[in-house]
């Protein structure tokens, strides 16, 4: 039904989400800065891509621009975002609204503020059905109760009338996920879905996401700064630094043989590799201010391999093996070290 306007029928293998050269500019009081600079990646149905990076690297901004939810101070200035074959950046507001829910959906991180505090949760869960399927209030409410049952809310019929503040953090996140998958989207973006939760609940939420993904054959973009989550849950990873994707590839390969010094720095700083009595290993320095990103390689100031060339020429993402790429002049050398 929903794919009637889309060239790629579900399941024929084309990527469900294809981002190319995405650029986002951010207007700040001290001038315009580029928050996302030429980001690109692909995700197929049923697969999970982790967008990995530290705070402020542009991963959430990337997610919001894919979903068309940027604040007015931010603007997409280039690139393309194809969702099931349609370039959503070329669609108008109304066209994007049609896709929001049935084709592309997003789960936010803070479930307390992401649910409307003055509306019963049942009504909020019913909203996608009301908007996109034109269902009656009663039918939509039935659907909402079904969804609540599916994501494991006890006594769903009763709890549908409750308000967000009457749920625990984990239950709220379940509600948010239920709302996002309500219309069986092709692509689901999860923006740090477990950040606000304690560890045991985190595991439950990740399991729920995985089950829903398998059951509905969704392409999942998992935005996170948690290396363990990436290792356990993702098929592919795109590592972001200062608005750029510096390395992409299958998780197992990227994590065992990183081809970008930043990826390697991140992996080395996992405390498992630490030696008792020595300071924890870390990537020295801090990411550049967005207003002062150097003209050459964005990582040069913190890179142990940096040479003169890195200050002058920005490395482009280059293929470094089957479905792998890295944006480093010395990725070959890095592999040999």
């Amino acid at each position, binding site marked *: 039904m929903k794919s009637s306007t889309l060239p790629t029928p579900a399941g024929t293998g084309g990527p469900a989400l294809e981002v190319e050269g995405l650029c986002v500019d951010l207007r700040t009081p001290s001038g315009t800065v580029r928050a996302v600079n030429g980001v690109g990646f692909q995700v197929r149905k049923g697969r999970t891509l982790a967008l990995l990076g530290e705070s402020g690297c542009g991963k959430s901004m990337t997610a919001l621009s894919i979903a068309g939810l940027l604040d007015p101070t931010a603007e997409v200035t280039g690139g393309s975002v194809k969702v099931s074959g349609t370039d959503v950046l070329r669609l108008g507001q109304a066209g994007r609204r049609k896709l929001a829910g049935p084709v592309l*959906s997003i789960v936010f991180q803070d479930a307390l503020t992401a649910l409307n505090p003055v509306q019963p949760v049942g009504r909020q869960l019913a909203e*996608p059905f009301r908007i996109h399927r034109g269902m009656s209030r009663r039918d939509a409410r039935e659907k909402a109760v079904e969804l609540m049952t599916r994501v494991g809310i006890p006594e769903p019929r009763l709890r549908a009338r409750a308000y967000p503040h009457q749920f625990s953090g984990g239950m709220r996140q379940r509600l948010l996920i239920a709302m996002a998958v309500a219309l069986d989207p092709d692509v689901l973006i999860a923006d740090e879905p477990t950040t606000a939760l304690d560890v045991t609940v985190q595991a439950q939420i990740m399991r729920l996401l995985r089950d829903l993904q398998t059951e509905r054959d969704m392409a999942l973009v998992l935005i996170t700064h948690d290396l363990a989550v990436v290792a356990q849950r993702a098929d592919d990873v795109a590592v972001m630094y200062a608005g750029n994707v510096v390395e992409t590839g299958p998780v197992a390969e990227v994590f065992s043989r990183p081809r970008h010094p930043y990826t390697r720095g991140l992996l080395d700083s996992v405390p498992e590799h630490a030696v008792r009595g020595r300071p924890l290993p870390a990537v020295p320095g801090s990411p550049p201010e967005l207003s002062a990103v150097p003209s050459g390689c964005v990582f040069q100031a913190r890179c142990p391999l940096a040479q003169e060339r890195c200050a002058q020429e920005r490395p482009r993402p280059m293929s470094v093996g089957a479905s792998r790429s890295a944006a480093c002049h010395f990725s070959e050398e890095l592999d040999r070290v």
Partner: protein
Amino acid sequence: MTSFLRKRIISSAIPLVFVVLGVFCLARLTGSPVDLYLPLSATPQQRAEFSAAHGFDDSIPVQLWDYLTNAARLDFGTSLRTGESAGSMVLKAFPVTLQLAGMTMLLAILGALLVGSLAAYRPNSLIDRIAGLLSMTAASIPDFWFAIVGVLVFGVGLDWLPTSGTLGGPEIWVLPIATLLIRPFGVLVQVVRGSMVGALSAPYVKVARSKGADPKRVVFGHALRNSITPVLTVAGDLTVGLVNGAVVVETIFGWPGIGKLMIDSILQRDFAVLQAAVLLTAVTIFALNILVDVCHALIDPRVRQAVPA
């Protein structure tokens, strides 16, 4: 909800007692009515008779006791000026003010919701800037100045509107309401804009948009109800301020409302009427505050739950 109401009423009753005491004492600081009502040539004998007839010869605590016990029976004494019962004079004047204030607040709130929401939907747009300038100006204009200039321009100069009085068609409402309206409207536009900007940038609005909700649904379905709480609080405060405004407006435009009644009874040391008028005003303000609280509870489930059953 009923226990919420009961608690709220009880906690309002205590300050009410202090208002009654305060007005009783302050009124007596304005001087003795005997000097005002009897001619200078009155004999001490006549003065003593007048005092005795109206109870002014009793000590202050005795007068207070009489006042309180009578008030408890809803007897507020008689007016020195007219000989009418103070209670009925106040009740006659009250609806005039209530109409004026009610109409004013209704227009102010509806207007502010419209202008404030428009301004908030696109912050820093042209509409937003114009609304900001206008509301700031409106909130800063003194009401007595606006009223006098209004009478001068539209009443005397252009002769479009009556200068004062309550005889005539709808045109008699224009200047009094405009005078009362201008400040609450200006303040409320700013409040609506502020809380709407906050609500529209809240994560749940992003979520609503991620479900494909159109702007109308986003503003009216999600943001409005969340942004109305501070608006109600401020509107309640402003309504209380209208009592002040009513004194000015009713005096300038000669409306027989409670504001004018209060001023007249102060000038003429008509204690009984003054006390009754202030008491009724105070009760109205307390009722208003309770109403605002009830509205909060109806709008926000978190407020409802915060009240222990």
